[in-house]
């Protein structure tokens, strides 16, 4: 199946700094693909190359099957893009901006009249459509940014840090919006440094650091394959040796460590085995006070990968 975004050995340098290093990114169609990395990892640079704002120093990019090179206006017809902290002309009104951009997308007056109110409603700016953008708050500018990225009902929506600068309520709204966009059948490529955001909305994830791709797969695979053995933390009242030994006998338990009345049960499986552990403890006279899982979320994977890669700062090549 044709990919939404495909890069082949994509490289971008700023002087001696390699911002993107031979990146092979593959974004499946109809997915919500999270693009994760610490600040300065090369996420925005990659996105700018994909949308044609920057020219790569090496490698190729294909967007919706079309190679991206030079100033090809046509290749942008099927793509919607919201930049990081978008800036729009302050002298334009919200509705005017969408109308002018709609004209640039070649939408007819009737299409614009149908599409714009819907989008303003979707991003919650209906009441402020006739206000100048200069009077919009940061959150409202983010919202109009999302609206303009959806104007042309694109096949691919690229959102660069859509939650940046938003309050918690705004962040939740953006997440819901991303899910809603994906339901419409659009491919969403969303860059973020917020792990929980990606974890909550994405089906696929790519993690980059210092311009290098560390991992790229489905969210489930990334979360489960790379984080090492999972564990269950149990707090048990009336904790006895019998309870500890009983838990150890479970076939999927690799080791059990005790710290006061708390047990750390390390597992050989990534299946949800809390019920079995719980039953074993109660059947041997223990009373469970609390239980939580550890080692299966994206955050742990991310930290593990970033630490292995030597931290989060951009890569500066060693001079010969």
């Amino acid at each position: 199946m044709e990919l939404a975004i495909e890069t082949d050995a994509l490289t971008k340098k700023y002087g001696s700094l390699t911002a993107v290093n031979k990146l092979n990114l593959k974004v499946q169609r109809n997915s919500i693909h999270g693009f994760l990395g610490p600040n300065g990892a090369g996420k925005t640079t990659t996105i700018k190359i994909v949308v044609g704002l920057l020219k790569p120093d090496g490698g190729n990019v294909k967007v919706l099957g079309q190679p991206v090179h030079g100033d090809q206006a046509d290749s942008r017809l099927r793509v919607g893009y919201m930049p990081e902290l978008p800036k729009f002309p302050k002298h334009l009104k919200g509705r005017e901006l969408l109308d002018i951009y709609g004209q640039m997308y070649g939408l007819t007056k009737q299409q614009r009249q149908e599409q714009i109110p819907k989008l303003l409603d979707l991003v919650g700016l209906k009441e402020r459509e006739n206000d100048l953008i200069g009077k919009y708050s940061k959150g409202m500018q983010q919202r109009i940014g999302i609206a303009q990225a959806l104007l042309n009902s694109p096949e691919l929506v690229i959102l660069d840090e859509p939650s940046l600068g938003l309050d918690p309520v705004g962040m939740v709204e953006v997440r819901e919006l991303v899910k809603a966009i994906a339901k419409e059948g659009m491919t969403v490529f969303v860059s973020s440094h917020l792990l929980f955001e990606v974890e909550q909305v994405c089906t696929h994830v790519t993690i980059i650091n210092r311009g290098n791709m560390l991992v790229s797969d489905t969210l489930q695979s990334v979360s489960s394959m790379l984080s090492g053995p999972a564990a269950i933390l149990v707090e048990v009242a009336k904790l006895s040796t019998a309870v500890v030994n009983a838990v150890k006998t479970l076939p999927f338990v690799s080791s059990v460590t005790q710290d006061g009345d708390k047990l750390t049960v390390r597992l050989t499986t990534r299946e949800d085995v809390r019920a079995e552990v719980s039953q074993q403890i109660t059947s041997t006279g223990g009373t469970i006070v609390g239980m939580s899982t550890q080692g299966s979320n994206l955050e742990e994977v991310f930290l593990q990968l970033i630490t292995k890669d030597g931290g989060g700062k951009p890569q500066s090549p060693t001079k010969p």
Partner: protein
Amino acid sequence: MVRYEMIWNIRKKKFLGILIVAFVFATLGLALPPVLSSVTGQAITSDPNFAVTFSAGGLGFFLFALATAMNSISSEFESGTIVPLLTKPVSRTMVFLGKLFAAFIMLLLVYTVLFSYAVIGGIAVYGPQSNLYLVPLTLLGNVLSTFIWVAILLAMGALSKNTLVAALVALGVFLALFMALPIVSLFAGPSPALSYVPGGGASGVMNVTDGTRSIATGTDGVGVNLVNAVLYPAGAVSFSKINLGAMQPGQTIVPFQEVLYTENMSLVAWRSVGVAFLYVFVFLFIAWYALKRAQILE
């Protein structure tokens, strides 16, 4: 793209600002003769060609261009609005042409208002005006003269991505030409080379049936030169310098006009048009190329 740019020009009060400058210029030109007349007591001489030979002048061209194009490209970079703009399905060439067309429309509107004012004011101050059908030609000539500075400002804006730098470089070029050319002219006389530099060019005189006409060959005189070429296609423009003659001991120096060369009025007019177009084309090409190649790092 034109709509995007025009709304900006109107909302940012650029259009209003240029109109005010235009009115100030035109009013000064129209009010000066009556003021001088009242001071000196001499009656104002009627001038039926005032309207067709009206010009915003070198400073006017520069100021109009400054107000129109100073931040047309650079502010997009400075404010970050270039990012969403260049990701729309509009090529950079179209973005550039849109900005150019909007600048042309704005200057055309401003000069239309200015020349309408000059015609009415000319009739009021200098009496009935003749050859008014040539006013659009002068107007377009003025737009072309202004466009040299528009092109220079756009080129500087696209190269530097900074409005202040663009304005200062253009101002530097303007002042250098404004001061240097008269000095060159003073020492070297009306050299033909002056006709190929933006500005007033070489000064000459053309004898016509009702007197003489002062002719400036440079790009600032495109409008007036075109009108003169239509009215006097076979007119000869003579370029001369003051010769102090051979100094003999005990004799009084009698300076005399030494004609260096003469040129046909049509040649003067079409050359000024050609030189103006050349400058416009070269600087617009630089501006377009810089925008086309720009990497958006912001």
